[in-house]
C-alpha cells in the first residue's frame, strides 16, 4: 500500500473539526481622525462540526464570513472568541510540534490557480515543496511527486514544465497534488472551481470526489454555486452576514430550504421562478452597522417586529429530518455518516413552510 493511501487516523464519521461560538472581528478604518474606531463582525457565533471522511459545504455570498472561517481553520486568522478544535484538541493551545503537525494535516486549495503557483518553479518543485519543508529525503520526494502527478491525472513529463505552460484546470490539478503531498487529513477548498471553465469544473470536482473516496479525506468546501456544493457535500451550512442561517444534510437543505434566505438562493439557482418574479427589496446590510435582530430581516418578505427585537437562534427544525446511520458503517457514499439534524435560524420558518405566514413586506430600520 502506498504511504498516501493508508486510511486516515481517526474513524470515518468522528468529529474532525469542531467550531463552537466562533467569532472574528476586524477593525474598520476610521472615516476621520476623530471618528469612532469601528469594527466589522465577520463571523458571529458560528458553530458546526466537520465529520472525518465527509464534506462540509459552506455557502454564502461575499462578505458572509465563509472565507474567514476557512482562514481560521487554516490557522491564518485567530478567532476573537469561541473554540476551534481539530481532533478534539483546541487549535490555539498547540505546542510548536503540534502546530507543525497540524499544518501538515490541513492543506488548502484556493480559487485562483494562477496566483497559487510560483511561476519560477517547475511543477516537480512545486508539488515536492511541502515535503522538502518537512525535511524528507530527496529520493522519497521524487517518488512521491511522480505518484502524485499520476494521481491527479497529469502526464508524466508535467513535472519538468512551468505553471504557465498549463491551463487553469491543469494548474488546479497541480495545486491539488501539492496539497495531497503531505498526506493531509483535511483539505480546505475555497472556491476551487470558480475560476475554471464549465467543462473543466466537472473534471476537477470528480477528481476531488474520487480522492476523498480513495484517501478518506475530509473536505471543507467553500462555494457559492449551490448545485456544485450539493454535488460534493454531505452537509451544508448557509451563511448570511457572519451568521449561520441554516445547516443540515446537503440534499435536504438545498432541495427543501427553510430559511427565507436559503429559499431565495435556491429559487434563483434552480430557476424555479422567472427572472424578477420575486425581487429582493431592501438594501444589503451595512457591515459597519448591522441591523438589530435578524440580519436578513431588511430583505425578508416575512419580517415582523419580533425579527427586529430578537436574534433568531439556530435551532433544530423538526424530527423528520433526523438521520440515523449506524455508527461504524464505512460504505456510506460521500461519508454520509452521522449527518447532523437540520437547524434553521428563523423565527417563522415553520409558518412560512406551511404557508400560514403572510408576507408582510420587508421592514425598514425602526419600522
Amino acid at each position, binding site marked *: 500500500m502506498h504511504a498516501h493511501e493508508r486510511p486516515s487516523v481517526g474513524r470515518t464519521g468522528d468529529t474532525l473539526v469542531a467550531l463552537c461560538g466562533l467569532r472574528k472581528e476586524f477593525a474598520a478604518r476610521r472615516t476621520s481622525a476623530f471618528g469612532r474606531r469601528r469594527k466589522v463582525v465577520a463571523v458571529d457565533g458560528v458553530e458546526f462540526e466537520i465529520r472525518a471522511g465527509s464534506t462540509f459545504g459552506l455557502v454564502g*455570498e*461575499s*462578505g458572509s464570513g465563509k472565507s474567514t472561517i476557512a482562514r481560521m481553520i487554516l490557522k491564518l486568522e485567530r478567532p476573537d472568541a469561541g473554540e476551534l478544535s481539530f481532533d478534539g484538541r483546541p487549535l490555539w493551545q498547540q505546542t510548536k510540534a503540534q502546530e507543525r503537525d497540524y499544518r501538515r494535516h490541513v492543506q488548502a486549495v484556493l480559487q485562483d490557480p494562477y496566483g497559487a503557483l510560483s511561476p519560477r518553479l517547475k511543477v516537480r518543485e512545486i508539488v515536492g515543496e511541502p515535503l522538502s519543508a518537512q525535511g524528507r529525503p530527496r529520493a522519497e520526494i521524487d517518488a512521491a511527486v511522480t505518484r502524485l502527478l499520476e494521481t491527479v491525472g497529469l502526464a508524466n513529463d508535467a513535472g519538468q514544465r512551468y505553471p504557465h505552460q498549463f*491551463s*487553469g484546470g491543469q494548474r488546479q490539478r497541480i495545486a491539488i497534488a501539492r496539497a495531497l503531498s503531505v498526506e493531509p487529513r483535511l483539505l480546505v477548498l475555497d472556491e476551487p472551481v470558480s475560476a475554471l*471553465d*464549465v*467543462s*473543466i*469544473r*466537472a*473534471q476537477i*470536482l*470528480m477528481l476531488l470526489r474520487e480522492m476523498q473516496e480513495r484517501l478518506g479525506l475530509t473536505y471543507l468546501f467553500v462555494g*457559492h*454555486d*449551490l*448545485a*456544485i456544493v*450539493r*454535488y460534493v457535500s454531505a452537509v451544508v451550512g448557509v451563511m448570511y452576514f457572519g451568521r449561520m442561517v441554516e445547516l443540515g444534510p446537503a*440534499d435536504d437543505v*438545498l*432541495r427543501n430550504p427553510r430559511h427565507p434566505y436559503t429559499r*431565495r*438562493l*435556491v429559487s*434563483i*439557482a*434552480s*430557476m*424555479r421562478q422567472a*427572472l*424578477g418574479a420575486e*425581487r*429582493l427589496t431592501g*438594501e*444589503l446590510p*451595512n457591515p459597519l452597522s448591522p441591523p438589530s435582530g435578524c440580519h436578513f430581516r431588511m430583505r425578508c418578505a416575512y419580517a415582523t417586529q419580533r425579527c427586529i427585537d430578537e436574534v433568531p437562534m439556530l435551532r433544530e427544525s423538526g424530527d423528520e429530518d433526523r438521520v440515523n446511520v449506524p455508527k461504524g458503517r464505512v460504505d456510506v457514499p460521500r461519508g454520509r455518516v452521522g449527518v447532523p439534524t437540520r437547524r434553521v435560524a428563523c423565527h417563522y420558518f415553520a409558518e412560512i413552510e406551511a404557508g400560514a405566514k403572510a408576507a408582510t413586506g420587508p421592514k425598514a430600520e425602526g419600522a
Partner: protein
Amino acid sequence: MLLEIRSLTVAFGPVERPVRAVWDVDLSIDAGEIVGIAGESGSGKTTLCAAIVRNLPRAARVSGEMRFDGRSINAMSASELRQLRGREISMILQNPMTSLDPLFTVGNQLSEVLATRCAVPSGRLRERAVELLRSVHMTAPEHRLRQYPHELSGGMRQRVLIAMAGSTAPKLLLADEPTTALDATIQEEILVLFRELRDRRGTAIAIVTHDLGVIRRICDRIVIMYAGRIVEEGPVATVFSAPRHPYTQALLASVPVLDGDRVQMKSIGGQVPNLADLGDFCAFADRCPNAVDQCRAATPKESASGDRQRVFCWRADELS
C-alpha cells in the same frame, strides 16, 4: 438589423501559422434583442466583442464586414468611432479593476461620463450620480461617490461600470462577463436591470459569458462559440431543451443542475485545442463522441432550420 457581421476573421501571429481567435463568424443582432454569446476561455467571444468596437490590438489582422445601424464599422473614421463607442455602443468589460481609474473617486468618474456623454449640467451631476448608483443597488451611494475604486469590492466596481454603461441609453450594450464577479442575489438584480434597460430604452444587449445559467435566465437567443467559430445558434428555449451540436450537448451536461434527487454532472474529456493548430476541419472532432473521417477533413457547413436556428456539424441532421 442593428448589428450585422459577415465572415469576420481576427488573426494574430505569423501569417504562415496564424492564430485565428475569431474565424469566419456570421452574426446579427436585432434592435432590442438580448443575445447570449457562450463559450469557454479561448473560444473567441471576447475578441469578437473587441472587434465590434474596433478595439483590437494593432497586431490583429481583421477581415470581414461589420455594419452597425446601416453604417459600416470597418469604414468609420476616428471621430465616428468615438461617437459609436460609449454613446451608441456601451461596453462592460470583464475586469472591473482595470476599467476604473485608480486615481479618481467614483464620483469623479461618474460625473465625467454624465457630463461628456449625457450633457448633464454640472449643478445636477452629483444628484444624477447618486441616482445612477442607487439604480444598481449600491448601498450608501452618497458615501460611495467619495470613495476610490480600490475601496470597493469587485462586485461594487462592476456595478459602478454597469451604472456608467447604462447612463447613455446606448443602442447596443456589449457586456463581457458582466455578472461573473457578483453574488447570486445581486446577479439576479443586475440581470433585471439589463432587462429593464432593454424594455424601457430598447437597448439591444449582447452578454458574453461562460455562465449558461445567466443566458438561460435573460437572453432571447444564444450563440455558442468553440475555438473561434460559432458552432450553434438559436432561440434559448430551443437550444437548451434540444441542443443539436455535440459540444453544446456536452457543455449543458457538464453543468450541475440543482433540482432533482441527485446532482448529475458529466465532464468533457480532453482539452480545448491550440488555436494555432487548427486547420480546415471541425475543431471539436478530437473530443467529439460522434466524429467521423469527414469531421477531420473539412469544416462543417451551416445547417439551418426554421426559427433562426443553425448548427455547424456534419452529422447534425443525421443524429437529431
